[in-house]
């Protein structure tokens, strides 16, 4: 009995989380006429029309490809450069380490709205405007500090004796780092990659500012469609439903570590 009573809170909470998602997904299977005709809980004429449009129209599906390209580039860059830095922060004391660590974090705190216009000017000046690499680099602003923070937490959990033993056994630093240390914290790296993926995938303001045609992310395609061609709610709902898929896919892989990752490896 108490077990059932206890399940009430999480069940209600998950129900609350699922309702808006259900609203979106059910709308994506409705025809425009049905949507504008009034409210219905289930689609009465079940249609795949909206999805067909997205998968056949290059302006739509290219949006997904563009988003995935810059997200993957960003995740790669962030994790690669954050690994040695996090190691340094977790193992060594050096001049200005604490200040540097806080300075890194301040970049995670900077509101993207503050940087939108200067970023546009900066990336136009170095002729990277409207490329995937521009968005990937811009997202490094908040993803690298986050990656360093999470990885540092995971690395501090690895006893220092591991390093010392390896050095005594004659391992050089790069060899130790690649052959022993990275496999040891593989779970931490997975979680970090997940977080970089997540924050780059959900961010829109910078991605939209730095692109126009060639690298336009799916989120921007959606907002522009909404404003130009009237209000095609069904299409918009279908596009929105599809943006949930990659996220759901990556969560499944890290589900056992995700809680620890949100605690930034510090539990």
């Amino acid at each position, binding site marked *: 009995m108490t077990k059932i009573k206890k399940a009430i809170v999480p069940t209600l909470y998950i129900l609350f989380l*699922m309702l808006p998602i259900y609203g979106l997904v059910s709308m994506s299977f409705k025809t425009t006429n049905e949507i504008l005709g009034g*409210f219905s809980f289930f689609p009465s004429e079940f249609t795949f029309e909206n999805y067909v449009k997205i998968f056949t129209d290059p302006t739509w599906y290219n949006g997904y490809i563009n988003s995935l390209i810059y997200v993957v580039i960003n995740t790669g860059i962030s994790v690669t450069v954050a690994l040695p830095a996090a190691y340094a922060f977790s193992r060594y004391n*050096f001049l200005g380490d604490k200040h540097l660590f806080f300075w890194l974090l301040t*970049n995670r*705190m*900077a509101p993207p709205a503050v940087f939108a216009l200067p970023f546009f000017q*900066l990336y136009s000046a170095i002729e990277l405007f409207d490329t995937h690499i521009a968005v990937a680099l*811009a997202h490094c602003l908040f993803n690298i500090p986050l990656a360093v923070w999470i990885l540092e937490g995971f690395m501090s959990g690895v006893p220092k004796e591991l390093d010392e033993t390896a050095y005594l056994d004659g391992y050089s630093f790069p060899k130790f780092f690649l052959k022993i240390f990275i496999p040891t914290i593989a779970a931490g790296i997975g979680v970090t990659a997940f977080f970089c993926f997540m924050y780059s995938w959900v961010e829109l303001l910078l991605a939209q500012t730095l692109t126009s045609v060639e690298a336009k992310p799916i*989120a921007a395609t959606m907002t522009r469609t909404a404003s130009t061609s009237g209000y095609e709610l069904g299409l918009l709902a279908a596009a929105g439903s599809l943006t949930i898929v990659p996220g759901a896919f990556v969560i499944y892989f890290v589900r056992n570590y995700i*809680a620890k990752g949100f605690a930034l490896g510090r539990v």
Partner: protein
Amino acid sequence: MNKTINQKAWWLILPVLVLVAFNAFIPLMTVVNYSFQETFGNNQFFWEGTTWFEQVLNSDRFHAAFLRQMLFTAMIIVIEVPLGIAVALTMPKKGPWVSVCLVLMALPLLIPWNVVGAMWNIFALPDIGLLGYTLNSMGIDYNFTQQPVSAWITTVVMDVWHWTSLVVLLCYAGLSSIPDAYYQAASIDGASKWAVFRYIQLPKMNRVLTIAVLLRFMDSFMIYTEPFVLTGGGPGNTTTFLSIDLVKMALGQFDLGPAAAMSLIYFLVVLLICWTFYTIMTRDEVN
């Protein structure tokens, strides 16, 4: 962990430093440049001193946006933290349901922010949305595009929907690090449920809760996309938070000087509050 002193560690940090400095320093300097000067285009700048700062600090518009922002952030933290703790405490501890709960709860966190806004917009539409239709058919007069109160409630509920899971996951991580022996000792002593919560669970969640509040504070203070897509800052200016106001000023009216000055003030406030949090957090780490 006792760390060794090694100045060569700087070399390991170098790549991070170059990338973040490129992204942070140059744009920040651009903002600083704009905030002290007046420009009429053609790359001509005139020194203005602190005019823009005085103008922003004395403007009613900034005060109003700032107050709205503080109110919003306070509201979502007051709702999300207790709710997150409650859900984390009642979540299953082991078994197949754990994974199901974790995956479903994490889902809102991975939805692009403008889709969150669009989803809630659709959900809350008074005539055709699930929420709006249900409320109106229950006899509650609800229209978030016209009533400021409805708009506020919708925005807050949307943020609760979007981010409470972050608090849940953090608390869950904190709770699952408590050894079983603690609970056994408590039941031998005949401790009440409240005592277990107050003297075992809450202290163990202390650190993760600090992180949760810090993250929620930072992110809610820079919220832009979701309310922008949901309400566009309206009706009127009632849900125009700091970032929305800033973008309106910079890109809508092209008032670059005041916008830059406002950016710097805004950033300094966030920095100050986060620095306080961070010092508290690292002080605990030392103890």
